[in-house]
């Protein structure tokens, strides 16, 4: 996992949801929260909205935190749920850039990856995002997605295989 500042790490691992521990957990992984939320919500603006909403709900409803895991894991779950809500509320409009005639190979590769990822089941997508964008281990992913740890391992294996199959070696290279 990403190295955390020592105070942030301690706060993130504490099983106590106070404004201070929530804020510390957020500060310690802010970039990762935003990256995962952006991936799930489908836009950087949606990602910011999702992280802000998750944080607000954590502050407002910290009384619902039961201390069964660290605050950070609880926050991850809130971020995933908020990002999912943002994505569901967003109008489903295909984002097709205007065809200028020129074809950037990086854009082509990105489009291919986007299509391949979009074709994955939701759980596989979210597991991939948490694993790669946030560097979470299986236990943390399981906590964030509300599934068993063994399920995470199987889900990631399926996601890897599906992505490999969907994208040819040229695109992945």
């Amino acid at each position, binding site marked *: 996992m990403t190295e955390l500042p020592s105070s942030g790490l301690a706060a993130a691992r504490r099983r*106590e949801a106070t404004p201070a521990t929530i804020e510390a957990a957020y500060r310690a992984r802010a970039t990762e929260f935003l990256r995962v939320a952006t991936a799930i919500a489908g836009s950087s603006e949606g990602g910011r909205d999702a992280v802000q909403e998750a944080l607000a*709900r954590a502050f*407002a409803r910290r009384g619902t935190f039961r201390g069964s895991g660290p605050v950070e894991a609880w926050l991850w779950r809130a971020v995933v749920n908020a990002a999912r809500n943002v994505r569901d509320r967003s109008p489903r409009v295909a984002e097709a850039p205007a065809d200028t005639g020129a074809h950037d190979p990086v854009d082509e590769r990105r489009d291919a990856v986007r299509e391949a990822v979009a074709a994955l089941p939701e759980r596989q997508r979210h597991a*991939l995002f948490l694993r790669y964008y946030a560097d979470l281990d299986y236990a943390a992913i399981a906590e964030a997605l509300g599934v068993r740890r063994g399920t995470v391992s199987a889900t990631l294996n399926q996601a*890897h295989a599906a992505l*490999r199959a969907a994208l040819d070696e040229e695109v992945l290279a």
Partner: protein
Amino acid sequence: MIAGKDPVVGQALDLLVPDFDFDPDTLLPAAYARAGALRTARRRRRTVAVIAFAALLLFAGAAIAAGKFDLLSFLHTNDRNSARFSVAPARTYHGAAPLALTCPGAKTGVFTCHVTGLVVGGNRIYDLGQQTDKVPPLTRQSMLDSLDKAQAAGADPARVAQARADLAKVGDDFIRALAVMTQIETVSAGSSGPGGTERVPPRGVPAWTACREVTLATFRCRPLAALVGVATGTPLYFLQPSKDWRRVQAPPSQPSDFERMLEQLLGRKPNADEIRFFMDLATVASTGSSSGPTTGAQTADSTAVATAQLAPPILGVSAGLVSVTARPLPRRLPDGLRPGATRLFRVVFYLDHSNGHDAAGNHTVYVYVTRAPRLGVWQVAWVGTKP
């Protein structure tokens, strides 16, 4: 592939959302503000009502005249979801006030609570309702000073002079009684159900508690009902409903509770001079009338609650006996009101036939009060029959 990661997949995903730098502070202020709105919405759903009695809070509080009054006799109420208590103006609580506490052993007497999240299980979770407000001193001199300030703030000089003359006619026992009244508050978390019923906690489990920090995560709490001498700033918590709550007939509301309490304190009914002085205070501090936006109705050395109690005279009725219930602010405020400096109150007052009113009985109005930026005093900004 290393440690459950496929480098090729990682490379591909980096194309979708590249790594970037991000300043956490850009989202925090908005998140805190949104959290406040979420908490307000939650409180509204729970219909938590915070009720404060004390009609002359306009000049709020002095130390309780110890021994003279039987305070405990009217701190007891029949409402299981309410708690009436007295504030000790000279004492201040400086500890923490977490948003929620878990109190597995909540009962009569002192019990220990933990910041929610440290203790798993149990169904005795208390939410923070409010912290007790500061109560400024009330004496004959403080009333005179307040009249000066009211006049400086634009009150009618003739009315101020009348109030001074009437103040000279009331006895010290009346002022002492008012001082005690300013220190008594009632809070309520009840919500009425079908057929005038309400849900109440199991017998012996307090609906409201006053708590003090013992350690970072541990608090010592006691039932708030009939508690005497609660320090200013003390966090007050109300119990979240759980499966073992029972539905009972709600006690009848008592809009004239103030009158009963004042009579108990005085040991008699207020005389004509005292009633007139009471009305002087209200009218000195207010001008204008009718529903809708008001102008110039402001108080000196006031509290928001006391200012809201000026609504009846602002409406042009002589109803000195009122109860005031703090309400959460709605999402949309009347034009020109700012959320941070505005409070909303439901004011219930009673009109009787002896005053010549056709509409005798209980009346309810909703009052927005705002703190004037320059003067720092509260003023009635809007009065209506709906919030």
